[in-house]
Structures are given as structure tokens and as C-alpha cells.
């Protein structure tokens, strides 16, 4: 699989549909000890985690990569059982002090194409 750091700025990952099963949401809530969220609504960080997982199904993280920062904006609640579509693009790529900094913009839409979340993940990894 292609390493994320070998992809150029402007690279777009293909929109990928993901069905969020109620069982997965329940497992996520258990894994994160989340006692505040109801199991019908997908927590924002679960959506973000799914978006990142979808991204990493297309390109692997190089060894030593660190998740340096995260931005997200919630636009609409997502219900368990709903289908989402995750799209992503590498929007910046640079180097600083022996580390490569890479920012990926992610957009999550519902099955009708309406955006439900946008976000940016900043990753840093040793320059190879």
C-alpha cells in the first residue's frame, strides 16, 4: 500500500461510503468509556475516527508518524445505522527540522450528499 508521505499535495482520496452500524457505535462507546452520549447519535470523535480509518485504508502511515493536530466542525448529527461518505485531500505538505508536516482535509457527507462534518488532520513524520 502507498505510504501517505509519498503522496503529493493536492492528492484526493476517492469518496468512500461507510455504513455505521449500531453495533459499531455501541462498541465505540464502550471502548471510549463514553457514558454521556446516547447510542443513537454517532459521537463527533467516532465520525472523525471513521474518517481517518477510511483514509488509512487507502494509504498507510509511515513508521514514526504522529497525529499532531485535529480540527473539526460538526454540521449535522449522524444517527447510528446511517450511511456516510468520506472524502479527503492532502492540502499541505512541508518540512521543518527533519519532520514532514502533512495536512489532510476530510469531508463527511450523509447518504444524500449533505455535509455532516468537515475536518483537518495534521500529521508529522520523520523525513525519509
Amino acid at each position, binding site marked *: 500500500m502507498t505510504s501517505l508521505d509519498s503522496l503529493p499535495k493536492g492528492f484526493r482520496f476517492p469518496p468512500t461510503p461507510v455504513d455505521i452500524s449500531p453495533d*459499531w457505535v455501541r*462498541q*465505540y462507546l*464502550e*471502548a*471510549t*468509556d*463514553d*457514558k*454521556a*452520549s446516547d447510542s443513537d*447519535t*454517532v*459521537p*463527533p*470523535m*467516532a465520525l*472523525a*475516527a471513521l474518517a*481517518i*480509518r477510511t483514509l*488509512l*485504508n487507502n494509504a498507510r*502511515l509511515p513508521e*514514526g508518524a*504522529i*497525529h*499532531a*493536530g*485535529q*480540527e*473539526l*466542525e*460538526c*454540521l*449535522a*448529527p*449522524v444517527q447510528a445505522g446511517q450511511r456516510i461518505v468520506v472524502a479527503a485531500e492532502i492540502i499541505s505538505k512541508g518540512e521543518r527540522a527533519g519532520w514532514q508536516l502533512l495536512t489532510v482535509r476530510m469531508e463527511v457527507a450523509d447518504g444524500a450528499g449533505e455535509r455532516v462534518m468537515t475536518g483537518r488532520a495534521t500529521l508529522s513524520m520523520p523525513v525519509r
Partner: protein
Amino acid sequence: MAVFEVVAGAELPQLKREITQDKINRYALVSGDGNPIHTDPEFAARSAFEGTVAHGMLVLAYLSEMLTIAFGNRWPQSGRLKIRFRGPARPGDTVTAGGKIEKIEGGRASCSVQCCNQSGEVLISGEAEINLP
């Protein structure tokens, strides 16, 4: 519905969670992030972290839960978050998520937010905004 008084200067209700290797392993399974830095003690011992560390997104989930406790469904419906991961959380750590309402303007609450470990070291810091009724 908020469970505290939503005014500028108010502290957000704190949330404490213990990090264990079992919790990290469960998060690795559910998130699909099986990076050995999180799950393989022998591999992680040879890394710069000198041991396994929790996924940043697991610690961030605690901060998100804290915002849900503070603001209810307004957080997943209208929230914005911008954070930096500043340090690793390790098995045995107790993470405290908290924050403060810095200002209320234009129908939105702007908050500083953070997660710290039991030594007060900042693991995550940043800003959150939530629409108010």
C-alpha cells in the same frame, strides 16, 4: 441541555478517565488503528516513547464526552474544535478533560479546552465553539 451556568468565565465540568492497556487495545480494535506504538509493548519500548501510548483520538474522545456533558446535543450538532496533541497519554495515567468559557458572542460559546495527566502535563489543548440556544 447544559448542566452548568453558561456564562463567560465558567469552568466546564471536568471528566476523569484512567488509561489502561486494555482500553488502548479495545480502541485499536474499534478504530482500526493497530499501530504497534499503541498495542505492542516490545515494539513501543524501542520507540522514542519508550512504551505504549494511547491513541490521540482516544484521549480526544474524553474531551468530546466532556463537551457533551457540558452542552448536550448542541456539541455534536453544531460544535467546532481545533486542538493540538502536545504529549502522550500512557497506561496508568489519569486523564482530566476540562475547559473554560472564554467568551459568548454571536450566539456561540468560545471555550478553551484541554486534557492533562495526573502530573498536570498538558496532553491536548485547543479551542471549542458551540452554538447556544
